[in-house]
């Protein structure tokens, strides 16, 4: 295994080195990367987008569609985690198309035995999990010190996330970073309080909407932009107020949606 791996790595490394060796030097100000579209963004970005942080401008405006698809990607990750079978108990007979499954299975059209057993083990997803959550604080014994510190700091960390979110247009930061911090708060609380109590921080009825809020908000903004400027995801170029409002909607949606998605992925993975 090992020698072959090394050979493979070597085979990959040589062309890659050859490839990067002939690139223009990366620090040079006259490299194409600095003279083409990038230079135009630097030149006109503030005027065109009203955002001083040009990374945010690229992210939300020039290449907003990338970001749209990006939030779709993390939504995909959540859908993926939700769609996977949960728990280690095998499904009721006949459910699993095993690759070499030659064992006879009950006849096709017969109604399935309803997976009640599986549901009570938490297969049923959020709702049934909520209803039948056992009042266990956590799987892992948590030191009181850690628990205290986490509970103490959680609001402050959340505040930091909010600050990142709202200063994203002029300082490093923005929706995604805020989302990551939000999710971190959730996850930390989940670890010390037990995931069920942490999960209660987001009401059950809101969850399906919140986890998809980022793509939905993008679609909404795209539609608004379409109505205002005639272009999908277009921002009115001279109305900075509207531009900022649209940007904030997106940032908030990314932060909330992203945070919920990341936290939910973590919580769902606990088996």
């Amino acid at each position, binding site marked *: 295994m090992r020698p072959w791996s090394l050979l493979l790595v070597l085979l990959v490394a040589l062309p890659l080195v050859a*490839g990067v060796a002939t690139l223009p030097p990366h620090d040079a100000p006259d490299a194409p990367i600095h003279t083409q579209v990038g230079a135009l963004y630097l030149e006109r970005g503030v005027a065109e987008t009203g955002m001083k942080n040009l990374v945010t401008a690229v992210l939300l405006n020039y290449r907003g569609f990338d970001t749209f*698809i990006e939030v779709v990607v993390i939504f995909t990750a959540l859908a993926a985690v939700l769609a996977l079978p949960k728990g280690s108990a095998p499904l009721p007979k006949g459910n699993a198309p095993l690759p070499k499954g030659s064992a006879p299975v009950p006849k*096709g059209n017969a109604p399935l035995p309803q997976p009640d057993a*599986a549901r009570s083990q938490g297969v049923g997803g959020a709702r049934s999990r909520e209803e039948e959550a056992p009042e266990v604080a956590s799987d892992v014994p948590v030191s009181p010190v850690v628990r205290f510190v986490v509970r103490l700091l959680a609001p402050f960390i959340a505040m930091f996330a909010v600050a990142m979110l709202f200063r994203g247009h002029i300082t490093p930061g923005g929706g995604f970073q805020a989302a990551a911090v939000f999710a971190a708060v959730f996850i930390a609380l989940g670890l010390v309080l037990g995931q069920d109590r942490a999960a209660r921080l987001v009401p059950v009825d809101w969850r399906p*909407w919140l986890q*998809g809020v980022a*793509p939905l908000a993008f679609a909404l903004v795209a539609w608004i932009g379409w109505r205002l400027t005639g272009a*999908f995801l277009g921002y009115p170029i001279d109305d900075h107020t509207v531009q900022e409002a649209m940007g904030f909607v997106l940032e908030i949606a990314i932060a909330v949606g992203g945070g919920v998605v990341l936290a939910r992925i973590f919580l769902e993975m606990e088996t």
Partner: protein
Amino acid sequence: MTGPWAEALPWAIVLPLVGAALTPAVAVRHPRVSGFWAWGVLLVTAVLTAGLVSELVARGPFSYGLGGWAASYGIELRFDHFSAWVLPLVVLFVVIVPFSWRYLDHVMPDERRPPFYALLLLNAGGMIGFCVTGDLFNLFVFTEVVSLSSYALVAVGGRGLAAFAALKYLFIGAVSSLLMLFATAQLFVLSGSLNMADVSLRLGEIGGGTAVMVAFAAYAVSFMVKAAMFPVHVWLPDAHAIAPSPVSAVLSGMVVKVGIVGMLRIYQIYFGAEVLELGAFNLALVWLGAISIVMGAFFAIFQDDIKLMLAYSTISNIGYIVLGLGLASPYAVIGAAVHVFNHALIKATLFLAAGSIIHQTGFRTLSDLRGVARTMPQTSAAMAIGAVSIVGLPPTAGFVCKWYIALGAFEANQAPFGFALVFGALFIFIYYIRMLNAFYFQPPVHASVAQASETPWSMRGPVVLLASLCLILGVLGGIPLTFVEPAVLDLLPFWGQ
């Protein structure tokens, strides 16, 4: 000058994606509603894409600058003749989804349906975006939507082994995506742009160099992995065989084509720039394609599991397409491009039919499924038509491509590959004869096979429809040509020859 339908371009991508985001909310009370919801969304998407294709037919390729920015300044969507592939793609989705309504009863509890259908919609939307985007980085992001949902879809049906197959797929797929990102970054560093047309222009100014070649190689390897060509096919058989059958149909029929479409896009960039001497590369493609055909057929012969066998035959068929691309003569490329669709159709037929049989009987190996044609005549007939079609015998859709590619092989004076193409497929028929014999001409060995009933109409309808399409397109083989030919003829002047 663009017509009214051009405005629909971004919405055709976004609609399934937003539909996916809404699925959990729509189906919160009744999880089974998600299936109908997904179908409805896909129907509307199909109407939109049909509009796009009508626009293409009426006025030729058109672009859409997202956010109102000019093409190379923002992100450009471009609908050209290769993008027309999205229409059959969505239509196939529309056919496959009803099949899954009842099929899923045995695969997953109702509670997991909404995320499943969300994944299916994401997969569809990702592929539409992939085919339509004119931006290299955007292409990468769409690749990830497609790949990520595919990884998950492989694993939804089972535990353990399914997860393992999905993970194998994920590791290999992620590395290929990384190579793609790396190549994109290289081109970005070289040209300072991400817009495909713009990059092509600037590469022409730069005029080649090692870095350009390495980027091309990285793209090529990446898309070969996605298309599951012979040396890098290892992820495919397990993943496609273990996934629930509607998913297998989507993955085997359509998702692997992402690699092919990607390859064509990169060709467009490099040929436009005229920076690449493609003789050697085409030769490599031709050889890899021929080897894929033979090896895929060879492995398939030894499978007893019908779905595993179908998965291996995908490798063979990708071999056809790649062989056709590598031959680089007009007929061969046309054949390859037509096969992108025809193979999807045939594979969907076969996987759905196989899925129906497995669903009704509980068995999946040939030795267990003997005599199933007695109790499931329509599904078995569909399976038989699919089998004849995938081997490329007339009068089925599979023959059309074989005809064109063989024609192209002789046109390009590559007679040996013509022979390989014609006889490589017959090789695989050895297997299908076994299958047909088992289904039709041998007595059942299991009671559940002997007493199986036909599938409900929501499952049988799609299977029968697809099978009849296989036959109809075998006779009306000229129809896909309308879309493929202009694109190929545009591309060919730069193509090696």
